[in-house]
């Protein structure tokens, strides 16, 4: 899967409360959540994000709460992929489970700037910054994780395993 988009860049420890504040957790429809995505860290995000755009951040992206509303809001806002130095554990699982592509790559996370046009290839982990011409390589996924991603997320993977796919 090859993804391409314009970058929105943030720093370290982007927590789930700024990704989707709890005042909106009385809803769980991704489209409703997307209207408030990143609201407390970047009030302009919802206005400027375009389908396929990429979020780049440094360490510990998605720390804090287990709310799956956070990756759901990001995915529904149109973001195609998140590249970060590292992800908080629960956010990492949630993103893979719901089919939001994420890549761990410190070099890219440090180097890429807001507005850069970036391409990412999930299976190989190759990231290309079309604006600067630089290339980076993300940490490869463990085989099982790739299988999850290729199945379309954890529920689809489980359906296959249980033979309940309709």
């Amino acid at each position: 899967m090859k993804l391409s988009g314009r970058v929105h860049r943030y720093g370290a420890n982007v927590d789930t409360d700024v990704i989707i504040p709890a005042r909106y957790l009385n809803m769980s429809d991704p489209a409703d959540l997307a209207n408030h995505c990143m609201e407390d860290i970047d009030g302009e995000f919802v206005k400027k994000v375009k389908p396929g755009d990429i979020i780049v951040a440094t360490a510990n992206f998605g720390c804090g709460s287990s709310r799956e509303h956070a990756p759901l809001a990001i995915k529904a806002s149109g973001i195609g992929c998140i590249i970060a130095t590292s992800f908080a554990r629960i956010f990492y699982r949630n993103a893979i489970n719901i089919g939001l592509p994420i890549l761990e790559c410190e070099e890219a996370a440090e180097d890429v700037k807001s507005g850069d046009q970036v391409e990412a290839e999930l299976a190989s982990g190759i990231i290309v910054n079309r604006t600067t011409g630089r290339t980076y390589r993300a940490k490869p996924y463990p085989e099982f994780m790739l299988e999850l991603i290729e199945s379309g997320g954890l529920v689809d993977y489980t359906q296959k395993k249980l033979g309940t796919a309709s």
Partner: protein
Amino acid sequence: MNLAEKILAAHAGKDRVSPGELVGVKVDVVLANDVTAPISITEFRRIGVERVFDPARVIFVPDHFVPNKDIKAAEQAKLMRNFAREQGTVYFEVGEMGIEHALLPEKGLVLPGDVVVGADSHTCTYGALGAFATGMGSTDVAVAMATGEIWMRVPPSIKFIYKGTMPRWVTGKDVILYTIGQIGVDGALYAAMEFAGDAVERMSMDARLTMANMAIEAGGKAGLFAVDDTTLSYVKGRATRDFTVYRSDDDAEYAQVLEYDVSVLEPQVAFPHLPSNTRRISEVGNIAVDQAVIGSCTNGRMEDLRLAVGVLRGHKVHPYVRCIVIPGTQAIYLQALREGLIEAFIEAGAVVSTPTCGPCLGGYMGILAEGERAIATTNRNFVGRMGHPKSEVYLSSPAVAAASAVLGRIGSPAELL
């Protein structure tokens, strides 16, 4: 193997597991709350099974926005309630419910040696009982509800050894805030934190629950304590089923071993906007507060309420401060009532709420306006956590929060003596 590895190996049906290994693990308990359950239920239906794997081991607790804060929250609570009734799972209605991580240990539903997964990041609280308990998202929990199993990567373990006698006013909360201040909010990322040492061995169960609760604030997957007489006397008379006690081997391996002398600690305050942004109480300076919150899954237990009353008694809450006290469960509320603690809170000018997560995550029951500051015994002080994105939360023990409520600024209980 260490404690985390022992529990995971047993639940994966293996003799040994090693850090980094991906394993399928049988779960003893699966839980979700009114915020996370609606997504879990949708995903559960999508999996295509009719029934949860074992209704006695699937637990729903309405605590985040319940008693219902608004119509949308009421709809979410209703959805969860209906699903619990349909499936015959464990469920606690308003009147019986409490904050999930205060409630489940109290009811003997989570036990030593368990693997617990919950759609709430503070599920790690049960590590205080010697369980491997970890927070996950709604989809993971849906799969665990359907199959009774979940995949995990065996985490590396970091051992934290606490030595010495804790000075007066230094609590489990101060020890864990200090630790997070030392290692950072991703200092234990993906790792299991194993808490040990003579200081920990002397700690009450309430203090251990507070420490394990905040493992996630260092990025930890779990925070575990060895089972000892304190644990066993806590679970005695509560346990709803048999359990197994696992122990770290003498030659257990750790990714890191860190030692701290708690005898030199002061009460800690975490400044906005990270739990790792800690300072000693003597270095806080003059910070006026508009609100003090005493409660949450971190510090809403009996020991916490007793400690707060010990500080408040004979004093009045400062006229510029709203002091909000939230007992963690109905049983704690009732015990506090019988001990005269509720009366003491009210006489001091505090309000006492029914159990709820409420203000901790900026839900309701004490939301901050722009520019307002709270001292809180809760677990997170991220931007906008308790309300307006331009409000501030400072984290502390119940003793410091109570003293600050009286002083009108963040201060030490020692100042009131």
